[in-house]
C-alpha cells in the first residue's frame, strides 16, 4: 500500500503554520506574564504622580511615554521597569529619594499627560490626592522626643532637591546644601507645601513639655515632601498612596 502523496510545498506550509502557532502562543504567553508584575505590586502600591486616576485605569490609560518625567523640575517621577508587568513604563514617585515639591507651581505633569492618565480635572496642588502622610515610626520622630535638628536634613550622599524661598523661589537646590538650626525638629511641618496639611500638636497638658507630635489632616495631598525631608535614618513619616480615594474620584468623575 502506497502512502498518499504529500507535496513538499504542503509540508512546508504546514510547518509554517505550526511555527506560527507556536510563536503566537509563546509571545502571548510572555505578554500575559505582565499579570505577575501587577499582582506582585498589589501589596505595596506605587505613589503615582499628581492627578493619577484609579490604579487599574491608570495602567490602561498611560501610554508609557514619560512626558511627565521630562517636565518635572525636580525629576521626582520615574518610569517603572519591566518587573512591574503591565505597569512597566508607567510613572511613579519614590518620595524618600525625591518628593514632588510642586516646584512647577502647578501640576506640569498633569498638563503634559497626553492621555488623561493624569486627570486634567485638577489645576491646583491642593486638589491633588496622590497619597496621605502617616507617622510610620513614632518612636524615632525627633519632635516626639523634644529634640531639635542641626545641619542639612539629609545625609551627604543624598541627591534629592527642594526649593527654598529664602534661597531662590524658582530654583530647587540640593537638600544637602541647606542647613537648619532648630531647637525642636519641625521639618515636616516647616517644609510642607500645603496649608493645613500637617501640624505639631503638644503631647501633654504640661506647658513645659517640649515634645510635639506631627498630626496629618485630610488636606494632605501626599506629595511626600515630609518623607523626603525627615532627618531620621529611616523616615519617621511616610506617604501612603491613596488608592481608594483615587478609585472613588475616578468613578464619580465618570
Amino acid at each position, binding site marked *: 500500500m502506497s502512502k498518499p502523496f504529500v507535496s513538499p510545498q504542503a509540508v512546508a506550509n504546514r510547518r509554517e503554520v505550526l511555527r506560527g502557532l507556536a510563536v503566537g502562543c509563546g509571545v502571548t504567553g510572555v505578554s500575559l506574564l505582565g499579570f505577575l508584575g501587577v499582582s506582585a505590586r498589589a501589596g505595596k502600591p506605587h505613589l503615582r504622580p499628581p492627578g493619577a486616576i484609579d490604579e487599574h485605569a491608570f495602567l490602561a490609560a498611560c501610554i508609557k511615554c514619560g512626558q511627565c518625567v521630562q517636565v518635572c523640575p525636580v525629576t521626582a517621577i520615574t518610569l517603572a521597569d519591566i518587573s512591574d508587568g503591565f505597569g512597566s*513604563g508607567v510613572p511613579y514617585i519614590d518620595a524618600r529619594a525625591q518628593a514632588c515639591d510642586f516646584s512647577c507651581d502647578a501640576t506640569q505633569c498633569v498638563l503634559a499627560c497626553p492621555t488623561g492618565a493624569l486627570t486634567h480635572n485638577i489645576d491646583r496642588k491642593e486638589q491633588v490626592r496622590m497619597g496621605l502622610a502617616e507617622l510610620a515610626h513614632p518612636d524615632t520622630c525627633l519632635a516626639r522626643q523634644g529634640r531639635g535638628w542641626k545641619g542639612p536634613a539629609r545625609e551627604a550622599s543624598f541627591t534629592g532637591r527642594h526649593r527654598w524661598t529664602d534661597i531662590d523661589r524658582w530654583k530647587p537646590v540640593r537638600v544637602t546644601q541647606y542647613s537648619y538650626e532648630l531647637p525642636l525638629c519641625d521639618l515636616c511641618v516647616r517644609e510642607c507645601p500645603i496649608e493645613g496639611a500637617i501640624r505639631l500638636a503638644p503631647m501633654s497638658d504640661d506647658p513645659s513639655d517640649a515634645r510635639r507630635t506631627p498630626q496629618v489632616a485630610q488636606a494632605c495631598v501626599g506629595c511626600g515632601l515630609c518623607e523626603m525631608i525627615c532627618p531620621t535614618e529611616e523616615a519617621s513619616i511616610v506617604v501612603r498612596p491613596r488608592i481608594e480615594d483615587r478609585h472613588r474620584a475616578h468613578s464619580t468623575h465618570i
Partner: protein
Amino acid sequence: MNRWIENIAMMIGRRPTRPKPEEQTPAMRELMVFERQPEQVQRRKAFIKEEAAHPKLSHKWRNRRWISIIVINLVFLLSYKLDIQVVEGALTASRVFGFHFADLNSSLQVMLAYKEVLINLLIGTGTVFTVYLLFGGRSFCSWACPYHLVSELAEKLHLRLARARLVKDHPLHRGTRTVLYGVFALLAFVTGYTVFEVINPVGILSRALIYGTASGLLWVAGLLLVEIFWSRRFWCRYVCPIGLTYGMAGTIAPVRIRYNSSRCLHEGKCRTVCLVPHVLDMTKMGYSKDVVNMVGPDCTRCAMCLDACPTGALTFDIIGVSDPVQPQRKRSRAP
C-alpha cells in the same frame, strides 16, 4: 480582484499568486513575448555574467535610513538631556515642538484598554496617521523604529551564519501577525491592560534609551537571538502588530516603490534583501500584471531593493511628484 483588496489580503497573510494571462495587460503580455525571444534571453544572460564579474555594491538608501533612525531616536534623547524641548516623550507618544504625536498602535492599545479617548490623544494619533498616510505607513518601521536597526544588524549575523551553514531560516506563516493583532486588541479590551506594551520592543528600546529603564532590554536581546539563530527577522515579519497598524494606515500612500518590469532581469536580488519579499513577488518573470507596478502596503519603503537592483527597475514613486507612469510598449532601454 481589486488591487487594493488584493494588497491588503497579501499583507494579512495571503500568499502571492501568479497572475493569469487574462489578468495581465496587453502591454505586459507583449513584453513577456519579447523577453522570451532567444536573443533577449542571451542578452540577459550576458548582462548577468558581466554583473557577477563586476558586482556593484550600493548602500545609499541603507545609509540614509540608518541616519534617519539614529537621528530620530537621538533627538528624543538629546532634547531631554539638554532640556531643549524639541521632542518630548518617547516613541509611544510625544510632543514635537509642542504638537501632539502618538504612536498608532500604542494609542490603539490605550483606547481599547481605557475605553475613553482624550482629545489630545486623538490629535496626536491623527497627526501621526496623516504623516504615514502620506509617507507610506510602514516607512515608520524602516525609517524610525529603533528595533528595526538592531534587527538589521542581527540579520547580517544570521545571514553570515546561514552562509556558513551553521543556522537555517525557519519561515512562519505570515498570518501569525494578523492573528496576534486580533489577540492583543482583544486582550487590551478584555483585561483593561495595555498587554502588548509589556513586550513591545519599540517602547522598551525607546524608554531604555531616554529614561534608562534597562531590564526590558533582556527581552529585546532574546528576540534578537531568535532572529539570529532560528528565524530571519521573525519579529518584524511575522509578529509585530505595530507593523500591521502602520501598513493599514499607508494602504493608499502616495509614496511607494515602483517596479518597472521592462527594465528587470528577474535575477531576484531584490527579494533576497527584502524584509517582506512577498511584496516583490511580481518581480519574478511573468508574475507582474502590468509593465509598471506599484509595490503593496506591506512594503516598508526601506529601499534595500533599490540598492540591490543593478538595472534600476525599482525606484521611488510619489504621486504627483514623479513622472506620470506611461504604459510602455517596448522596453525603453535594453540593458
